[in-house]
């Protein structure tokens, strides 16, 4: 269930320094989020598609990851055009679709897909270990980086604990229904997860002490600087900056 599907690859993007990837994805996502013009948003969308292609990801897998977003967009498309103030486009059975509502929906759709694609192409293509390394080198506090790495490490342990607990419950005839017994059982399962997480945390901390942990976090892998890195960062920054300037002065 929890897998880093996109993290292994040999593409241009995969070879970039994690730090550079984090920085460029921040620059691009913020620029996209602030863009309020349909056509310019389209340009960002094209850039994000370009990045996905550069990362050599499988199109189907990428679409699958967008599924939760599609549900949200569906809801927006149902509610917004009907509830928005403004000039009416079509009237159907007493309901009116407004033009600003439809345009807003288009913008939201394009921008949200774009930002997720940027994230997929640049961030989801690294392992959590490299993400931690990159965050460390853009001066995110050590404690935060450590939280991320540690939490990632134990998610799969706790997830398999949960699966086994649920499985055991099912073997003993538990069939989830809408009733108090079911909710109580789920509360016990969730409660047990937190209890076991807490007990394990104690032991892990003791293990760290035994390995000489002295309140300082170290990281091992070092990324050689690579001319590609700075070119990539500059290219993306210039592109976003010019789009922002175009939006401010010409549109």
């Amino acid at each position, binding site marked *: *269930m*929890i*897998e*880093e599907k996109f993290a292994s690859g040999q593409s241009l993007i995969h070879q970039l320094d994690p730090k550079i990837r984090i920085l460029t994805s921040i620059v691009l*996502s*913020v620029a*996209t*989020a602030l863009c309020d013009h349909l056509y310019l948003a389209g340009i960002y969308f094209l850039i994000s598609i370009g990045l996905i292609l550069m990362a050599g990801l499988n199109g189907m897998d990428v679409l699958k*990851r967008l599924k939760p*977003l599609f549900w949200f967009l569906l809801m*927006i498309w149902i*509610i*917004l055009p009907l509830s928005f*103030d403004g000039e009416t486009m079509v009237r159907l059975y007493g309901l009116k679709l407004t033009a600003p509502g439809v345009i*807003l929906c288009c*913008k*939201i759709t394009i*921008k*949200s897909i*774009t*930002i*997720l694609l*940027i*994230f997929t192409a640049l*961030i*989801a293509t690294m392992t*959590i270990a490299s993400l931690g390394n990159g965050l460390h080198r853009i001066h995110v*506090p050590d*404690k*935060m980086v*450590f*939280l*991320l790495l540690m*939490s990632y*490490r*134990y*998610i799969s*342990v*706790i*997830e398999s604990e*949960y699966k086994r607990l649920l499985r055991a419950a099912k073997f003993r005839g538990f069939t*989830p*229904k*809408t009733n108090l017994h*079911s*909710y109580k059982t*789920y509360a*016990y399962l*969730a*409660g047990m*997860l*937190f*209890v076991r*997480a*807490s*007990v394990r*945390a*104690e032991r*892990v901390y003791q293990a760290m002490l035994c390995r000489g942990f002295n*309140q300082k976090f170290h990281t091992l892998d070092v990324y050689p600087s690579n001319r590609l890195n700075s070119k990539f960062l500059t290219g993306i920054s210039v592109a976003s900056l010019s789009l922002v300037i175009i939006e401010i002065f010409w549109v």
Partner: protein
Amino acid sequence: MHISEGVLSGPVLAAGAVIAVAGTSLGLKKIEYDRIVHVAILASAFFVASLIHVNIGPASVHLILNGIVGLLLGVAAFPAILTALLLQSVFFQYGGLTALGVNVVVMAVPAVLSHYLFLPLLGKSSTLNFTAGFLAGLFSILFSSLLLGAALWFTNHNFFETSFAIIMAHIPVMIIEGIITGFCVTFFLKVYPEIIPLRKK
């Protein structure tokens, strides 16, 4: 519960990011080195708990349990929730980077508040324990959905109906989270009271 990317306006995103950064730094400062593993692994448990689906009639909803995270961690819920959301983005693509701040605020602020509101009620009687847990669960989801609605409304007043729909859709979730949190809290007090940071005085 989160808001998708590409919806909120610049000022709302910025406000979310600022509050999230402030809360997270405060939280990190409060975590001593000997508690940091604890926070990290509880963040993993929070992540996994969100994979639990419970039935509600013919449909099913996943648990959120930010109330429990708040009760157990206090201000440290900020970095814990940030960690869990970031990992969710990486694994499931629930969000990107720009709305992360707002989403952290939506989940963490009610969590931290329920720590201060409901933790003092615990450990007195078993009915009160369940009730306090129930309220913590209910309140966290209620307040989270209000914050989410507010974020939309501040972006564009035309989002009023959408906000309203989101809050209404969360009413059953509030009740379920209340019940589950209530049972969870009684479970903790019976099975492993050390996990609850009761005031020792």
